[in-house]
């Protein structure tokens, strides 16, 4: 009788749970703010300005959005890698941190649907690091050159006429789509609608080159990544070409294939978590 070799044990990283921002406990939200405050105080390539600038200005603009059909659609894997590296930088400040996600399908009745964690100007007697950020002069100079005349401190104009947040029904319809690239295209459209909803006419979230400087950008993209994760659970075996899987995602040291398993990246999604320490 042939023996079946046991699979070698592949160590899996400890899972960090990305939680809904509306369901964070007070200590969890305080940790998020501590991490953002810490990273915003750093001026080198560990800091907030560096990470926000990777998406847009200062040049080069690295973010990947869907373009022509003849080119690989890298929207979802590139932004997953982006969020991963940003979250790792946050965890260098607060080791237990996981980036929260903003469920924009369940808008709060106040603050024009922006979660209070992000809408409050002050938190704990200090400026709320999730409310706004001052953008570096190099990025602002290049933005001005391109014709974007926005102030150097991020602002939002949520809920203007002509904008709407996606609904839970729209997300449910997306999750039923079987083809990955169709799903990605449709999800990217919902993603764009949220950018325009938050940024409005004169807010930074409406502009690709400056959007990532707004702290709510990261919670929005965590929601996008979460929807992709839910889609992956429903459609576990999509067919990808080797070329697609081997595509690099600059400036990150990851390929598309390396972004497909969030467990291997050390995180997953939960609505909320709580824990108790057992001593003895």
């Amino acid at each position, binding site marked *: 009788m042939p023996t079946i070799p046991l699979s070698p044990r592949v160590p899996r990283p400890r899972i960090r749970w990305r939680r809904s921002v509306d369901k964070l406990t007070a200590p969890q939200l305080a940790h998020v703010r501590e991490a953002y405050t810490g990273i915003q105080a750093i001026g080198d390539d560990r800091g907030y300005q560096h990470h926000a600038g990777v998406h847009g200005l200062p040049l080069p603009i690295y973010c990947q959005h869907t373009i022509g059909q003849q080119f690989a659609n890298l929207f979802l894997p590139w932004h997953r890698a982006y969020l991963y590296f940003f979250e790792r930088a946050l965890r260098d400040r607060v080791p237990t941190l996981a980036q929260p996600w903003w469920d924009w399908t369940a808008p709060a009745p106040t603050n024009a649907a922006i979660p209070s964690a992000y809408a409050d100007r002050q938190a704990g007697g200090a400026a709320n690091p999730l409310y706004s950020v001052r953008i570096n002069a190099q990025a602002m100079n290049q933005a001005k050159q391109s014709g974007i005349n926005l102030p150097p401190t991020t602002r939002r104009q949520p809920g203007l006429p002509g904008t709407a947040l996606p609904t839970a029904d729209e997300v449910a319809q997306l999750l039923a789509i079987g083809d990955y690239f169709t799903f990605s295209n449709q999800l990217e459209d919902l993603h764009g609608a949220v950018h325009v909803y938050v940024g409005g006419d004169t807010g930074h979230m409406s*502009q690709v080159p400056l959007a990532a400087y707004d702290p709510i950008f990261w919670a929005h993209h965590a929601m996008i990544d979460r929807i992709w994760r839910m889609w992956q659970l429903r459609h576990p075996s999509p067919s990808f070409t080797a070329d697609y899987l081997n595509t690099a995602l600059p400036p990150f040291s990851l390929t598309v294939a390396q972004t497909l398993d969030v467990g291997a990246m050390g995180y997953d999604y939960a609505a909320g978590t709580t824990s108790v320490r057992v001593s003895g």
Partner: protein
Amino acid sequence: MDRYVSDQIELPFTEGGPPFTRADLIFGGVDHSGASFEARVFFNNPDADERTPTEAEHGYAGRFVVFGHGGCAGEEGHCDVPPDQNASDDLRLPHPLTPATKPVVVTDAFKRLTEARVTITVVPVLPGADGPRREDVLFFESVELTTYV
């Protein structure tokens, strides 16, 4: 353009033709180098504008969103899209401003059509404090109606 209205387009499938489970309008060559906006698509409503309700009775079929780059931050030529990015020896990622393809799923609206011809209207809608606005921000090269069995 600040609004696109097609000529009357003959539908590929008329009554009694092959069934379909999904219909897409595929917009090709969509420019995303400028402002961000929502492009609303209407069937057989050539007068649709930024204030037209997004409801079936007004011919609303769906939307796509352009998340725009807001202009060119580089020097002269920086934002010119190279003409031959598909060359087999060019392993760089494509230029970020390469025009986009935007599919809009219009199955329900397509099924509601009762005539063998359709007019497609596309309205770019920008947010505005005094109400939705329309500007000269919509540029695309083609639109194709595709049905799937």
